[in-house]
Every structure is written in C-alpha cells, then in structure tokens.
C-alpha cells in the first residue's frame, strides 16, 4: 500500500511533465493531440543516442554518479534531447499541423495527430528495433527504506522526482514572473485580444511547442531511467497523460501537474484491488469518473 503510494507519486511526476505540454497545446490550438506522447519516445531515444555518443568521446563521462545509475553523459544528453525534442515538435507543427490548421478543420487535426503518432512510433521501431532498451546495463539495487510496511525505493526514482519537481518549479517562475508568462496567459484567455495588444500569436505557438516538447523529452528520459525505453512507450502513456489533462481541466497548467500526480497515484493504488493486467484501463475509468463528477476538470473552465 505504502509502496503503491510512493510509486504512484514517482510515476505521477513523469505524467505531469507530459501533461503540461499537452494541455498547453490543446488549449491554444484546440485539438486533442494524440501524438504528444510520441514526443516522450523521441526524447527518450534522442537521449539514448547522445548518451552513447558522449560516453564514447570521453570514458569519464560514462561513469555513473553514485548512488544513481545516471551518468554525466546522460545528464548532458538529457539537456540536448530536451532541445531537440522541442525542435521536433516545432517541425511537426510546421510540416503537418500548421497546414491542416490552415485548411480549417479542428477535428482533422485530431486525425492528423493519429497519423503522426503512427508514423513516429513505427519509424522509431524501425530505427532502434522493437526490443526494449536501457540507459545503463548496471544493476542498481533498490534501497529498503523500511521493512514494515515494506518499502523499496531506487535512488534513480528519487532523482527523477526531484528533477521533475525542479523543472516544474522553474516553469512556474517563468509563467508567473516573465513577460512571456503573461503573454502566454493572455493568449490562453483571449487570443484575439492578445493579438491586438501586440502579442505575436505564431511566435507563441512555436514557444509552446518548444516548451511542451522539452518537458515531454524530460518525461521520456525519466521514464526510461526508471523503467525501460521502447517504441511503444508513447502508446502506453498517451491515455494516462490525456487523463491527467482532463482531471486538471484542459488548459490549466497547474491542473495538469496535479492531474498527473492524481492519475499516477490512482493507477498504482488500483493495483491493490485489481490484477495488474487491468492497469491500462484505469486511466479510462478516471476519465469517466471526472466526466461524471466534474466535467471540466479541477481547474478547467467551461468552453465549447
């Protein structure tokens, strides 16, 4: 039970990072982006490539930072991967979403995102193979925090949680203290009025994709660090991330953070009563519960 709670918080932090970018793009561009979770895969694999590269350039970089299995090269690779994934998100928008948007249909965008997800997922599978990969082959033993109740935690999990919270705190500072943060909120509130006030809408869209992609990459790397990396990573996480945005209310960044933790906790606590085979269905049950109890989420506003 305690173990499930702790695991839930850890998974929740990863879902939160993914959900922030999704909720921003969904609010701004008004479409459910089914390809957002694939950005996590792109990030995880990009970090894998650069991790290998840096390790080959200088062996000292490939040393693990005790007690973690994380290496210096992976830390560098994470930063590069965040940038690259953000740029990929912008590129995907330029190549596909922007053009579909120009033709009108909001719902065509949803379907285009289905197609994009399918392409990214399978191209990753073709390049890196269908077998799961790991950042480190070393076995890092979990630390027994207490025996009664039994609780195991891996050092990497603690690092992941701290890093995720730090990233979210930085984002919070940016949103609440900078002109960019104000512009972002203005655009979310009323795009037309924001434009009249001299905010460049297309520049804001690019920035949203950059931030969303960067956060997704971090989430992907953290997921790879605590689980494993595989081409179906995006497929497995798309529904939990959507559930997190719906719990928080579409468009609310703080809601997405809270939603991520709630979905992570609920999914892990559900394992106490449900056999683990059913866990992919749990996010759907959460979505249903939210739609019945509070259709616009915890912090969402009514908007059709």
């Amino acid at each position: 039970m305690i173990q499930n709670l702790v695991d839930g918080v850890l998974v929740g932090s990863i879902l939160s990072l993914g959900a922030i970018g999704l909720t921003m793009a969904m609010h701004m561009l008004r479409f459910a982006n089914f390809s957002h979770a694939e950005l996590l895969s792109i990030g995880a694999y990009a970090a894998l490539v650069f991790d290998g590269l840096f390790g080959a350039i200088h062996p000292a970089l490939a040393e693990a930072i005790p007690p973690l299995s994380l290496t210096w090269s992976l830390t560098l690779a994470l930063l590069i991967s965040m940038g690259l994934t953000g740029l990929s998100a912008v590129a995907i928008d330029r190549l596909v979403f922007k053009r579909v948007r120009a033709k009108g249909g909001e719902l065509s965008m949803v379907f285009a995102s289905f197609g994009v997800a399918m392409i990214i997922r399978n191209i990753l599978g073709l390049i890196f193979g269908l077998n799961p990969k790991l950042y480190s082959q070393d076995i890092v033993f979990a630390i027994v925090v207490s025996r009664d109740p039994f609780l195991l935690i891996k050092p990497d999990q603690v690092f992941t949680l701290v890093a995720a919270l730090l990233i979210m705190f930085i984002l919070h500072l940016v949103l609440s203290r900078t002109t960019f943060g104000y512009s972002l909120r203005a655009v979310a509130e009323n795009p037309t009025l924001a434009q009249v006030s001299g905010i460049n809408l297309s520049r804001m869209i690019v920035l949203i994709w950059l931030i969303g992609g960067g956060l997704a990459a971090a989430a992907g790397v953290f997921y790879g660090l605590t689980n494993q990396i595989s081409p179906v990573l995006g497929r497995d996480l798309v529904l939990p991330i959507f559930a997190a945005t719906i719990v928080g209310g579409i468009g609310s960044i703080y809601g997405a953070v809270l939603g991520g933790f709630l979905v992570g906790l609920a999914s892990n606590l559900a394992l106490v009563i449900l056999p683990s085979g059913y866990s992919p269905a749990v996010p759907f049950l959460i979505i249903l519960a939210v739609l019945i109890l509070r259709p616009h989420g915890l912090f969402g506003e009514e908007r059709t």
Partner: protein
Amino acid sequence: MIGVISYLVFFATVASILSIAVLGLNLQWGNTGLFNGGVVAFFGAGAYGTLILGGTPQAGQLGGFGLPYLLALIGGMVCAGGVAWIVGLLTIRLRHDYLAIATFGVAVAFETMMRNTNALGGAQGIRGFERPLREALGAGFTYNLVFFGFVLILLIATYLFLERLIKSPFGRLLRAIREDEMAAQSLGKSPSRIRLTSFVAGSVVMGLAGGLYATFYAFISPQDVLPILTFQIWAMLIVGGAGNNKGAVMGTFLIWAAWTASGWALSRFAPLEVQLYTGSIQFVLIGFVIVGMLLWRPQGIFPERLVVSQSARSNK
C-alpha cells in the same frame, strides 16, 4: 483458377464487412462531425456479443446461449449501441476533444478487459461458435460464396438505409448541426440529443460489422480489436471521402487492397530480417497516406456532394 476466385471471395467478404463499419463511421464523422477514436470498441462489442449469444457453452466462459444466429447478430448490435450510449451520454455535451479521448479510452479499456477476463475468453479469445447453416452447406467454397452473398446483401441494405437517412429531414438536421450548432439550436433543435442518436446509430452499424467479422472467422480474440483497426477504418473513410457513402465503400476496397498487397509484397520480396518489421513498415505507409490525404486532398477521392434543398432552389 478456383484458387484465385476463392481468394477474391475471401477478400471481398472481409472488405465488405469493413465497408459496413466505415459506413457507420461515415454517419458519425462524415455527416455529424463526431470524432470516434475507438471504432474497435464498438466493432468488438458487436463481435463478442454475437459469439457469446450465439455460441455453444464452453467451460469457464460466459455465454454459450446458443441463440438463433440472426438474434445473436442483433444482440451484438445492441451491445455496441449500449456501449456507445453510455460513452455518448457522458461526453457528447462537452467540447469535441472529450469524445475523441473518451472513445479512444473505451477502446483501450475494452481490449484490456477482454484480454484479462477469462470469463470473456481472455487472451485466447472466444471459440465454440458454430457458423450458421454449416451442416447444410459444408465448409468449402460454397459456404464462403453464400456467406459473401449474405454480407453483400447486408452491405447494400446498410448503404440504402444510410442514403435514405441522410437525405431525410433527420440527415439534413445532422449536417446542420455539423456546420453550425448554434444556428440549429436557435431553430429549436436539440443538438446534443441528435448527436447522441447519430453516435449510437453509427456504433450499432459498426457492431453489425463486428458481428459479421466474428461469424466469418467463427472466432474473436483481443488480437482482433487492436487500435490499428480503428486507424485503418479511419484511413478508408478519409481516402474515400468523408460524407459520401459511395466514397466510404470505395475507400474501403482501395485501402484494404493496398494493405493486403503491401503485406504480400513485403513477405514475398523483402529480405528475411526485414520481415519482422513488416507491420511497422505498413503502419508508417498508412500513416503517410493519411497525413498526405489531409494535407493535399482532405475531401477524399469522392468528395461529399453538397445538396441544395428543393425549397431553397425554387426561391431563386
């Protein structure tokens, strides 16, 4: 020669069954503008419903009620409609993304449930279904030909029914809501009720397709209700032309032919180490077809014909 013909019959049977599902989606998406991201859930509900109601009893499994075939098929359609009604009731009033996400979710939940619940067949799927008229017709080519005829009749019936429906006042109402919900509402219509009706009706049609599919193979398993099927059915509609029933059927045959042919070509000509990735290559190809269509010909090969109503024409 008989081999080629029997393969063509096999191909046409599957393509016709899928056409029915695509027609159901066309009612939802093409005519009403509802995004159904979980076609397989409704297709699967029809398939499982039909086999559970019409099958013979199996140890440890729900069902085996052995109902007469047509009754079982209708029961499957009712199952699909029931699932659609619940999902629709919760989401149809909200902004459109919710329906897309919830239907996507219901498909994931459906597959998970079928895979893990042994009473519903579990990962092995549901067996023990006697195909109707099996004894009278034998198991060979004659049976397949007769079954193809049966599917074709149902496809034509579905097609004619939907054509009539979209030409009726109800069909005009659907398009009115799709184009401008507020305007329809101001004329005293209830958009959410009409959309729910259309959503359930389309899902019932998908359930029929699922029931026929399960009958054809006398078997259904979670492997048959993977998300890729939703995607294929969408691809068929988009390529054929959303809003046009003829396009929907043509698109189905076209995409299904391309899918089968690419699978065959890859297994025939690709080197052995590539064959493991046949699925991935096909998925990438179909992904590009979709994105390409949306970018360069979003109206499909057979675009929707926009009709001007008679009264509007006489006013000119």
